[in-house]
């Protein structure tokens, strides 16, 4: 929503048996629920068949008229955990 401060991500996937989880799997909507110390689950693959899944990540930002001028930055840490 242009004119409103927003930061979010979404993802798509191809190949393998992986899947993006809601709410990050929408074609047009974005979400962001993680914080510096609280991870959010983005995708899963319940089939350990060793076939690769390619995930594409989209980043969205909107600002309002009174968003302070500045340089903004963050980093997102991506981790993966195998369930053996």
């Amino acid at each position, binding site marked *: 929503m242009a004119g409103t401060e927003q930061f979010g991500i979404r993802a798509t996937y191809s190949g393998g048996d992986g899947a993006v989880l809601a709410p990050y799997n929408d074609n047009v909507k974005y979400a962001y629920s993680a914080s510096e110390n609280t991870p959010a689950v983005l995708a899963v693959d319940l089939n350990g068949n060793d076939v690769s899944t390619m995930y594409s*990540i989209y980043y969205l930002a909107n600002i309002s008229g009174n968003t302070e*001028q500045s340089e903004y*930055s963050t980093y997102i*840490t*991506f*981790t993966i955990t195998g369930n053996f």
Partner: protein
Amino acid sequence: MKTIKNTLKILSLTAVLICIFHAGKVLAAPLTSKSDSMSRLGNSTTEAVYSDHTIQFVTPTGVSSGQTIVITFPSGFNGATHPNGALDFSDVNVFVNAVPDGTCGGTQQDIVSAAPTASQWSAVFSGADNTVLTLTSGGATAVAGANSEVCIKIGQNTTTGTTASQYLNPTTSGSYTISIVAGDDSGDIVTRIIDNDRVTITAHVTETITFSLSDYEVGFGNLNPTGARFATGSEPYGADGPTSVVAHTMSVSTNGSSGYEITYIGNTLTSGAGDTIDAATITGDEDGTPGTEQFAIGFVAGTDATVVPAYNQANPTFNYSFVPNVETPFVYETAPSDTEIVSAYYLANISGVTPAGLYSTSLTYVATANF
């Protein structure tokens, strides 16, 4: 043939002995539902990357009183170099869940550094770079039952928080195998260390300010010594008092971190012959003093702007003022502001001896953002 028969006898005897031997001992089983959820996967090639570990597994046999859980990290991990100090028992949380649910939960165990009581576990790091963690059951109530789920947190994901120590990730990317021996059960977990696990995202928000006036020509029409007049923006210009009328509005917005201010500058109403209407300061009076020369302006803010008190025309304050030819601030904000609408009021009164003529002036408004 005799040799073969003797050999079979020996094997049979051995089998019987093995069976007798295991009759008094629980058989080992492989751990199941194993995982190590790390907070960082990046390698420590260019910078030290420390990671929390949440190691989870189901032990089919269980861990009995006095038994141990031994977690051995492969070479490359280092539990002795964290700025908060080397890993110790305070950097470890252990949970036992009798009903595995795939999440790290259940009953939190009491962890001590050494000499555990019957309800405690000791946690001791040892080996090169503290890569071996040994949890030792102190007794009958520090156990994990058969088929229970054990979760072991190491690092700042424990109740110790950000003052806890963590394992340093290896400097070389690749697969690393963590081995676990829990009582008589055992298993491995593979983790993957990669070149970089972080995406840095940057954005630039530029300085902005918008400012506009809704009208550039306003007028009083015919002034009257018996009643106030207010300027309006459409012909026929002007409106009779005593009720005030908005002449025009101005719109301002900025992302300046310290907001903005708006000033005006201009002369008072002046005729072609050089006669003037006196500039006035009016306090708490919507229509001023009819019969006395007065020219003044007042403003009303839309939402969160502040109007300088002398110009605060908002009901019931009804203040007006005018300072000729001096750049004078009359409204401001001290923080970034989305669109703010400010309404302008122009008041004029004349006396019975005010010279006839066509009076006019031009006011210049300037909005300045404070970044």
